[in-house]
């Protein structure tokens, strides 16, 4: 068995997905939430920032909960890309 086994590679994937992709997905979703919340800009921005840490916790737990290692990559990456696409579409539409 090599030093870096299949399992430990999987764990490494989950850890990096949780920390990095989880953060990117959270930040992008928080931006999306700040755009679409029907509040004053100041309120919308603060509300989404206040709640973002709970979402991040959820993302991290999700990365370790899913059955297959690669799901951490696809699920969190998917959330990130989805939020990114919608955000770009909205900014493009508005301006």
């Amino acid at each position, binding site marked *: 068995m090599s030093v870096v086994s299949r399992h430990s590679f999987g764990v490494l994937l989950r850890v990096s997905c949780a920390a990095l992709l989880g953060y990117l997905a959270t930040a992008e979703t928080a931006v999306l939430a700040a755009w679409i919340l029907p509040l004053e800009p100041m309120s919308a921005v*603060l509300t*989404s920032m*206040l709640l973002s*840490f709970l979402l991040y*916790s959820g993302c991290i*737990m999700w990365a370790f909960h899913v059955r297959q290692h690669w799901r951490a990559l696809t699920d969190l990456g998917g959330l990130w890309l989805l939020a990114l696409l919608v955000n770009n579409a909205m900014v493009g539409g508005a301006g």
Partner: protein
Amino acid sequence: MKGSFFRSMTWLHTWGGLLACWLLFLVFFAGTLSYFRYEISWWMQPESHHLPRQQEQNAALQQALARLQADAPDSPQWFINLPDERNPLTRYGYRQAPEPGQRRGRFVDGYLLGDNAQQTAVLRDTKGGDFFYRLHFDLHYMSAITARWIVGAAAMIMLVGLVTGIVIHRRIFADFFTFRKGKGARSWLDIHNISSVLALPYHLMITYTGLLTLMFLYMSAPVDKVYPGGRGQFFNDQNPTFQAVKAAGEQRDEPLPVQAFVERFKADKQLDTISRININNPADENATVTLYGREPGQIAHYARSTLYDSQGEVLGNSREGQFYAPEKTASTLIALHTAKFAPWPLRWLFALGGLLGCVMVASGGVLWAKRLEEKRLKAAQPLGWNLRLVKALNIATVAGLPLASLVFLYLNRLLAPDFDARRDWEMHGFFICYVITLLFALYQPGRRGWAVIWAATAALALLLPLLNLFTTGHHVLDYLSYGHWALAGLELTVMVLGIVACFAARHCLGQENSGRRRVASTRSYKEQPQ
């Protein structure tokens, strides 16, 4: 990941917790001491212990202004902090004009001597309680921003650790009252559960609000991308007193009518007292004055403030009347973290929560080591360097940080008051002590290691009042008779903790034999069939 939700969350809780536990202990420990930041600072400047408390705010203000006018008429910035219940002296300070190559000049500060306008108090240079306050999110020996990201990552692990801890804890109410003594890892699990569950609302609050205090660093994307004008505009809109007014470059003739501003400010904002004054470019035509006051009985974390120009024209006003709900929510949550509003009984309750947080984190680390040790002993495997490292880090952090803090206090009294680098060496001493403790613990990672460090902590803690008596002539009874409750309280609390450390040392020594016996019996059990 390993089959069920329960098992994957247990895995995450265990390994995330192990990775961050020593840093988290440091944050909990230094953060808990920060509840008594001003009291620690006061104790660490014994020259101020006999000074009378300044009572009259206007007189103090006039004295400080006169002082600043005499010391630094051309400084770009003055500030005055007026005394309150927790800070007995008026603190004034100014920024020196920047030297070539510097973006900002150095800060110089001093304290007014009680009721004498002509003299200032010469207090020894120390970081005081601010050391622990800064340590708990800025760490030391590294840039503050790097440190904040590291502490932020640890705080996220803590938050996830709490949520996963709740999820995997299936008997949360039964375990509220469960403690099985003398059962090795089982007992440590009980301690971990009790300390976590008893103060669970506190743990969740302090972790989440800790992240919020730095949310403009950690999660700035929404404000940067969505708020019109970005972060800078956000801060300007949220607090219109944050305006930079450029100096005109022309000298002003008559002094600023600060007293008149203060009266107007108190009337406009319905305050009895003010807490702080900032004056930018005091000698310039375009001088600005910012006044701050705190409304008593308010939890939320904002001061009422107004920015005046030199003619008394209002340039900006804090918006406490027009806050949006999320602003109020955010500032109340952040206020729960800093506990500036907390009266003494509540402050102690918060400190108790912080202490339970320390126990929670520490027992988690010890539990991990105990389980691995029992597993390896049962399997008759060598204990291994990784277990030794974890055990040593446990000792050096849990018992070593209190010891290092005491060394910090001792150095404060032992270094000469006029030694130039004393402020730095108090702090170096803290870290040197930590490193020595860690080396010792690596050499002696068992119960004896714990016992020695606890004993050293106990000795320093119990001798602290004596040290103070011999180096400054002040003692607890002295403080009590003067009504300096905070100073007496600090020494008495340290002594109580010293007694606790005494018991801890005795407990560790006492168990050394029984531990060996248990190991022996496991071995003989293993060996019997052969």
